């Protein structure tokens, strides 16, 4: 588990900076991880040329600060890996044998199998394969070839994707290094980090070649590849995966709403909302204007007519998901997107608490203490004549609640123009909505505001929020939360982000060339 550190800072603190000079690279230990479920499916798809959804049924990945991490392989998952290798190898041979092997499968022989192994094994292991490894795979081919050529190839594929060299993000420290040394990752490990960060999948041939040429150990070469990869269509997969985890969009699967209050809600809405939110974030990262302001204060949305009806947006008439300009008096920024507002709501009412907490933890990167252990925590039911704000009045009248809730509720009440499906409303239980709010105890985003439009604009000006966007992407890219030993990298990233006028694509490049991304700390106990 990660030691507490740079990832956790309290509400009143300035975001912590490094406590040493950053002349020499520093980086937190990166624990061994396996492919996440999403990475597994995309990787086998790329490797075998077949579409896979098999990993959706695997035991879930660990949830670390909202990000999926392949932290450990349980006996259940180990068995699921073996079952999946069997199923996928059979499918690959049945559906795509000719696409896999460098010969006519009808006349396939051992020479063809050897040639196949020579190219397949390095792709499966994401690094050159040793002679021993290739010999082992050839032995598997021979076991299967006792039946026929296709079965031989099936055995090779099954073996390769059952091996830890395929299943894990292996980042071995170099020969002769000592525990605690900070050393450069080898080029192939960097290539994998880069492609799983930007594409959520394995490297392509060009990236393998760059790794083989030693180009990725130089920041310039790494940057060149990062920029090339960000131009690719595959980069959308990476950023969508980030958005899904950062914003908690998996909660939309199977989400239910009170049918009496939200009659237009049906079982399809969760998925529509997820697509809508992903479209919004994808445009912010890859659209015409990639300044961070687009993410935080954009006035566009992606909606289809059914979703538009359910959330009360007019003028969406074409079938299918489409980009629409939203009313800038009602919808400004990420925080006004119906999907996020719905995730941050209860089935029958808005949820100012979780909306406020979201801003604190996901946009300001501040941790909050938990409620007192012995307190009855009850979300008051909607009551005729009482506004949401009135129903939560105890939070400010009870001294034990007030300390924390002052950090949460005054932000959350600013969202009161949106109901539990993100529809705009002017009244709540018959009374005019009061969406006035205030941010307290941030580093540089304090002050009163009215409604989400003003809040979003206020947050978009904040260096703390901009840095937090970088921290969230860092957690996604690294599969772990930053600690004190990463703070030089966090600072490098933020300096570069600022220097590039807060361009989100430059932020991604900045993470890729940061020390935390390029170096590792040699763990204790390795036998080299």
């Amino acid at each position: 588990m990660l030691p507490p550190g740079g990832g956790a800072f309290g509400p009143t603190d300035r975001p912590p900076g490094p406590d040493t000079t950053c002349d020499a690279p520093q980086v937190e230990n990166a624990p061994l991880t396996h492919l996440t479920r999403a990475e597994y499916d995309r990787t086998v798809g790329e490797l075998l040329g077949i579409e896979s959804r098999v990993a959706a049924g695997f035991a879930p990945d660990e949830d670390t600060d909202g990000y999926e991490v392949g932290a450990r392989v349980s006996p259940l998952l180990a068995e699921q890996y073996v079952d999946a290798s069997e199923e996928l190898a059979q499918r690959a041979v049945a559906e795509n044998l000719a696409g896999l092997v460098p010969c006519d499968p009808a006349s396939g022989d051992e020479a063809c199998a050897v040639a196949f192994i020579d190219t397949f094994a390095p792709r499966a292991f994401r690094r050159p394969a040793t002679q021993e490894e290739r010999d082992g795979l050839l032995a598997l081919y021979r076991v299967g070839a006792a039946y026929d050529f296709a079965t031989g190839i099936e055995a090779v594929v099954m073996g390769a994707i059952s091996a830890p060299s395929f299943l894990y993000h292996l980042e071995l420290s170099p020969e002769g290094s000592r525990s605690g040394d900070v050393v450069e990752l080898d080029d192939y490990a960097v290539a994998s980090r880069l492609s799983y960060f930007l594409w959520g999948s394995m490297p392509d041939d060009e990236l393998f070649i760059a790794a083989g040429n030693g180009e990725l150990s130089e920041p310039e070469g790494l940057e060149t590849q990062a920029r090339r990869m960000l131009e690719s269509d595959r980069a959308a997969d990476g950023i969508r995966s980030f958005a899904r985890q950062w914003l908690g969009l998996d909660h939309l699967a199977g989400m239910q709403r009170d049918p009496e209050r939200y009659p237009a809600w049906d079982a399809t809405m969760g998925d529509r909302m997820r697509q809508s939110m992903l479209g919004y974030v994808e445009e912010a990262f890859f659209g015409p204007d990639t300044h961070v302001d687009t993410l935080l204060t954009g006035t566009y949305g992606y909606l289809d007519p059914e979703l538009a009806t359910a959330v009360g947006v007019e003028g969406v008439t074409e079938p299918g998901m489409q980009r629409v300009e939203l009313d800038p008096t009602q919808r400004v920024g990420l925080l006004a997107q119906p999907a996020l507002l719905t995730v941050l709501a209860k089935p029958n009412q808005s949820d100012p608490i979780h909306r406020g907490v979201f801003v604190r933890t996901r946009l300001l990167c501040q941790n909050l203490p938990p409620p007192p252990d012995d307190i009855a925590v009850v979300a008051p039911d909607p009551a005729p004549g009482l506004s949401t704000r009135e129903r939560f009045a105890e939070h400010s009248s009870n001294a034990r609640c007030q300390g924390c809730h002052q950090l949460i509720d005054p932000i959350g009440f600013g969202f009161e123009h949106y109901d539990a499906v993100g529809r705009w409303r002017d009244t709540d239980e018959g009374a005019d909505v009061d969406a006035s709010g205030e941010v307290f105890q941030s580093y540089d985003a304090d002050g009163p505001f009215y409604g989400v439009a003003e809040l979003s604009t206020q947050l978009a000006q904040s260096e703390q929020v901009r840095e937090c966007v970088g921290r969230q992407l860092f957690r996604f890219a690294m599969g772990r939360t930053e600690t004190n030993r990463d703070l030089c990298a966090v600072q490098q990233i933020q300096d570069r982000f600022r220097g590039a006028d807060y361009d989100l694509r430059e932020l991604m490049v900045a993470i890729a060339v940061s020390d935390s991304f390029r170096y590792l700390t040699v763990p204790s106990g390795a036998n080299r």
Partner: protein
Amino acid sequence: MSSLDHPRRWRRRAFLGAVGAGAITLPFWRSLKGEAQVTSFPKRLLLVFSPNGTWPDEFFPSGGERDFTFRRILAPLEPLRNKVMILDGVDQRITSVGPGDGHQKGMGCLWTGVELLPGGTMGGCDSCPPVSWSSGMSIDQRVALHIGNESPFRSVELGVDNGNNENVWTRMIYRAPGEPLPPEDDPRQAFDRLFGNLDSDPRDAERRRLLRQSVLDYARGDFERLSPRLGSEDRRRLDSHLTAVRELEMRLQNTPNVGAACEIPTVGDPGPLNQDASNPAVIQSMTDLVTMAFACDLTRVASIQWNNSVGQSTFPWLGFNDRHHDLSHEGDSNGAAVEKIIRINEYYAERFAALLTQLDAIPEGDGTLLDNTLVVWGNELGKGNSHTRNRIPWVLAGGAGGAIEMGRYLSFSNRSHCDLLTAINHAFGIEEGFGDSRFQGGPIV
């Protein structure tokens, strides 16, 4: 549309359609039925969990140790009263120490009896303190080390609707400190894993067995080459994966000791797993699977986790759509909410009674499978709206072949639940305390 609705649904059959091959199977249990007549029957342990606390006033019986009267929630157990034991006043005192909020500690300590590890940042919670996994092994895994080696599966973890995240709220079984075991929530996948598909073409089965065996050999070689090059912590992770692969290899050769009542259960389609309306059907499937896994001696240790801590299941068939955890937070004065909490816990008690009845329907020697099993039903909290971990609603059943005498209602005052965990150890012949030694006072029964 969501890829999560039907993860790998009927994947083997779907594959058959794709290639038009003959029946494909896991060949391991070909000899499942009708082999040796068994004369002695193993003891088994089954842990059952439901979340978010109960309503104590309607849970705990009235009356004395043997002349107790069930109140509303446990009334479904009346026909089984001689085979169950209710414990009042047994508290998760261990949760007075260590990091974590009420639900986190309640869940992580429930079967481990030790505190949570301090951590970095556990997801799944907006405002939780830095906390990690439990610092200990859970009681079922301790028992499995002792009795689990003679069956193909050392233990089997099943669940119902435990979400799509792995965090301290969704895991209760721990193989080792910091190593939670995930439950299998999909009855179809659980069926495949436990029973495979028996009507296979033997030639095809032989081919699959050969490929599997060779592939596992090959993978093991890769593990062994890599392991020494890793740091000690990473090596531990990789070695734990390798152990699982070895166990899988052993299972290829291992034939279970089959009881006469062993039959392959039929698992119907319970519907989409992320829809609450599927809950009764999924619970029934899991009940069928665990019953036959025991009867066929595929395993001797199992757990069924009916939803996770802070679970937000809804119960539309009870006539309301409120989310469980939200409801559990309503105040004592909200009579409508209290009634719903009672109904939900009653529902779970009905499921528990059905499970016991099914286990009890399988004769083993002079008794039944239930008699040879110790079933323990727990909850991470005593009561939802206060988050108390005192007066956990414990029900024991079966008694592990007479090791614990049933038909009783026992009241304690602030007794540590480590003493219950210790009693479980003793029931299986492990003469050791269990849990944090600061909270141990000897077996509770």
